[in-house]
C-alpha cells in the first residue's frame, strides 16, 4: 500500500486544480432556457451519480480480487470504496431531491431511478455494517465481499432504469443517439465534463485517504492483539 502514500499528494493537488477550473466554468456557464440557474445543480448531481456507480464497480472488482487472491490490500480498498461510494450516493440523492423540488414539484418520487439509487445507498451502508458485525475480521471481509458481488446486480438496474421503465427521471444527461431526448450540450457541457474529471480525481484521493486510515487502524489492532497475547 506504499503506492497510496506516493500518489496521494499528486492526486489531491490535481483534483483541487481541476475542481477550481470546473467551478470557474460553472460560474461562467449560462442559465438553461428551461431550468434557469437550477441547471448548476446538475454539475454536482451528475458527476456524483457517476462516481457513486464507479465506486461500486471498483468495490466489486476489489471484492472479487480479495476472494480470489486473499490479498488484504484488495479488502482494504473495497472497504475504502464503500465509504467513498456512500458519500457520493448521499450527495446524488440529496442534490437530485433539491433539484426535483423546483423542477418536478416534489422532493421525492418512488420511480425506478430514484428507488434503485436508494437501494445502492442501503447496499453501501449494509456492507459497512456487515463487516463490523462479525467478530472474526476475516469472516467479515469474506461475507462483505460476497454481498458486494451479489449487490452488483443493482448497477445495470440503475443505469438502464430510465430506458427500461417510464420514469419521472429524465434519460441519461450525457448519452448520445436515440437515448438522448434531453441532454446537456453546447456551453453547458464543458463545466460538466471538467467537474466529472475533477470528481474522478477527488474520488481517487478520498479512496487513498480512507484506505490509509483503514490500514493504520488494522495495523494498530494487530499490534494491540499481539501485545495482549504477549501479556497473557
Amino acid at each position, binding site marked *: 500500500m506504499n503506492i497510496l502514500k506516493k500518489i496521494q499528494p499528486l492526486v489531491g493537488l490535481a483534483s483541487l486544480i481541476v475542481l477550481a477550473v470546473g467551478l470557474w466554468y460553472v460560474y461562467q456557464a449560462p442559465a438553461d432556457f428551461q431550468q*434557469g440557474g437550477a441547471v448548476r445543480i446538475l454539475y*454536482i448531481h451528475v458527476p456524483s451519480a457517476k462516481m457513486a456507480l464507479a465506486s461500486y464497480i471498483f468495490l466489486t472488482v476489489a471484492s472479487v480480487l480479495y476472494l480470489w487472491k486473499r490479498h488484504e490490500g484488495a479488502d482494504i480498498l473495497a472497504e475504502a470504496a464503500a*465509504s467513498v461510494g456512500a458519500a457520493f450516493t448521499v450527495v446524488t440523492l440529496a442534490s437530485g431531491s433539491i433539484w426535483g423540488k423546483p423542477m418536478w414539484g416534489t422532493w421525492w418520487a418512488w420511480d425506478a431511478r430514484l428507488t434503485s439509487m436508494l437501494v445502492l445507498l442501503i447496499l453501501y451502508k449494509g456492507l459497512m455494517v456487515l463487516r463490523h458485525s462479525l467478530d472474526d475480521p476475516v469472516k467479515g471481509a469474506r461475507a462483505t465481499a460476497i454481498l458486494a458481488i451479489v449487490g452488483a446486480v443493482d448497477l445495470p438496474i440503475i443505469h438502464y432504469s430510465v430506458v427500461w421503465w417510464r420514469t419521472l427521471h429524465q434519460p441519461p444527461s450525457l448519452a448520445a443517439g436515440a437515448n438522448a431526448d434531453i441532454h446537456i450540450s453546447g456551453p453547458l457541457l464543458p463545466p460538466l465534463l471538467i467537474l466529472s474529471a475533477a470528481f474522478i480525481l477527488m474520488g481517487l484521493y478520498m479512496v487513498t485517504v480512507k484506505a*490509509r*486510515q483503514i490500514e*493504520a487502524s488494522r495495523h494498530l489492532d494487530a*499490534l494491540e492483539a499481539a*501485545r495482549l497475547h504477549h501479556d497473557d
Partner: protein
Amino acid sequence: MTDYTPYVAAVYGLALLVYGGYTLRWHASYKKLERQLASQSQESP
C-alpha cells in the same frame, strides 16, 4: 424568471460539507492512528 440561488447554494454547500468533511475526518483519524502507532513501536522493543 425564478431565482434558484437558494437551491443551488444548498447543493454546493452540501457537497462541500460531505466530501470535504469526510476527507478531513479520515485524514485526521489517519494522523491520530499514525501517532498511536509511533508511540506503540517506541514502547515495544
